[in-house]
């Protein structure tokens, strides 16, 4: 098991290096260089920089040097924790992202837990009571869940909440807590707001996972080990939970590899619609404003989250399935 995890961890820096190249190419994609845009931006807002400062910046970014030198300079600064400055906000990027990244991770993981907590019972009951009212009900529900774009669900719920209940359900905090430092009261306030985005973001995944689980479970329910467990005199529900559900969850866990990154990055439009203080809306804004260092940093953190998500799913799968554990060790 340990060998398995170490192997995966060793792969991590390599993956991040590859991703950093992609992020850098993205940063370089728009015409013109960063300093020229920066000077123009400054001029537009009425301030200016002297020649010396401009030259110092050009030297810092290595703008007169070939691409790979620029890349290595950028990478070195990133490794030292200097993500650069946002053109648009005129603030260090680490300051902009830090808080939002934390909320992104909290929201993503909660959504993920919600998805599993809801999908497993629904999938289990649908399969064990195949063709019952419950099964049909959730089949329809699942199709609707998969087919409706998530941002639509968000818009509809927002409209319903506003027109029927008279409340606004955007953001993750009440206005008075939005820019406060963390405190117990702020955490409670987060708890009051976060459930709706969780439900909206998790609906699609819940529907998908419940359908996968149902199909897997229907396969497992006819396996000879079911018969053996019955022949031992095991109560039906206990044996269903212990054997087939346990086995049908394994493929679900491997789907986590793509699902977790999807929750992190796929929430961009919903997060914008719901005005969530996560990194999604920031990415959208930075792309529109060609704030490329910010965009690059965000894309890179998405890559990071994706890699961590895959790693988590691999470890979880190895922990759940002894066959994989043995194979890899």
């Amino acid at each position, binding site marked *: 098991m340990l060998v398995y995890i170490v192997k995966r961890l060793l792969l991590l820096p390599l993956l991040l290096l590859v991703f950093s190249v992609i992020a850098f190419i993205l940063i370089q994609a728009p015409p013109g260089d960063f300093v020229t845009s920066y000077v123009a931006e400054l001029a537009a807002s009425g301030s200016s920089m002297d020649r010396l400062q401009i030259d110092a910046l050009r030297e810092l970014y290595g703008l007169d040097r070939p691409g790979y030198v620029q890349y290595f300079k950028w990478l070195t600064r990133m490794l030292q924790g200097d993500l650069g400055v946002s053109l648009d906000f005129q603030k260090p990027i680490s300051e902009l992202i830090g808080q939002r990244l934390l909320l992104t991770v909290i929201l993503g993981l909660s959504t993920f837990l919600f998805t599993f907590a809801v999908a497993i019972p629904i999938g289990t009951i649908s399969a064990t009571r195949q063709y019952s009212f419950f099964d049909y009900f959730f089949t329809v529900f699942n199709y609707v869940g998969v087919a409706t774009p998530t941002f639509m669900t968000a818009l509809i719920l927002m409209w319903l909440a506003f027109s029927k209940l008279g409340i606004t359900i955007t953001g993750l905090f009440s206005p008075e807590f939005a820019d406060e430092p963390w405190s117990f009261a702020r955490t409670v306030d987060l708890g009051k707001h976060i459930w709706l985005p969780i439900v909206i973001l998790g609906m699609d995944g819940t529907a998908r996972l419940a359908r996968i689980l149902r199909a897997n479970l229907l396969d497992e329910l006819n396996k000879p080990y079911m018969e053996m467990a*019955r*022949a*031992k*005199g095991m109560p039906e529900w206990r044996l269903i939970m212990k054997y087939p559900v*346990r*086995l049908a969850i394994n493929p679900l866990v491997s789907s986590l590899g793509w699902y977790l990154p999807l929750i992190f990055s796929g929430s961009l439009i919903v997060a914008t619609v719901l005005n969530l203080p996560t990194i999604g809306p920031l990415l959208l804004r930075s792309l529109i404003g060609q704030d490329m260092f910010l965009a690059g940093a965000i894309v890179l953190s998405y890559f990071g989250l994706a890699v961590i998500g895959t790693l988590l799913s691999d470890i979880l799968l190895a922990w*759940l399935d002894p066959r994989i554990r043995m194979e890899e060790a």
Partner: protein
Amino acid sequence: MNPDHILSVRDLKTRFLMDEGTAKAVDGVSFDVSPGQVVGIVGESGCGKSVTIKSILGIVQKPGEVVGGEILFRQRGNGAAAAEMVDLAKLDGRGKEMRAIRGSDIALIPQEPMAALSPVHTIGNQLVEAVRLHQDVSKRRAEELAIERMTEVGVPNPAERMSMYSWELSGGLRQRVMIAMALSCSPRLLIADEPTTAIDVTTQAQVLRLLRGLQQNHGMAIIFITHDLGVIAQVADYVVVMYLGRVMETGPVDDIFHNPQHPYTRALLESIPSVHALSREPLPTIEGSIPHPFNRPAGCPFAPRCVAAMPGKCDRRTPKPTQLNGGQSVSCFLHNDAAEED
């Protein structure tokens, strides 16, 4: 019911109701098992052997259902007089009473040991579970009992095997683990559903010898299912020959082999390769193929393939079991013209 019997199956009928039609998988099966006896059930694939024992265990799943007959089982009691009879066919398969009998009084050795064990739970976990379902003992004690059972059935290094998974064991070992599991609560009736089909011939012989030995040590009765008459000859005391959900002939093993009465039993015996036969001589086979259970022929089910079939009789009316001298019983008009099902 005869006081000598531990199990008495009377006119058992199990059907599968499906969109395409009703499959009469078991259609009026009767046989008895005495304590300490090995009863072999033999028949071609699909003749309803597994469904028969699933009915006995009460684990027939939808769309299948036991629709008729009795399964009388003598429960464990203090002394012969106190022994109580239950009709398993009347019990709820998922109910407490049936579950208390299943795995403790009546145990199963499944056909495919690989598929019958969970690949993600250790051998020990599954053995301990079997012990603790019926015995109120601590986990430690259950582990000791499991190791004892594995030693008894000849699993080398049993303590080590406890933490292993089924796919780490060889086929023969897996089957031994299944036997240990079945024995965990000292059943009085052991049902073995083709326990040797999935393993190679040498291991097969060892497993058969083991079962025979265990049967003598524990004095339990065994229902042994197979489609291999050679295996029947090695283990069984008494034989039930099935064809298409019905019993064709029953009798002591020697009578069945040396004095078969039913044309189907004779045909089955002729199709066994013999060591004495000339090597190039083609093996006699039974003409025709088994009809599908949906469109079972009218009359005797074997009539369309029977060499001795009497047209106008065997294809119209269904023969009923007739008791012959010496404990043999045959369902065939050749033996009793009048024994007809109503």
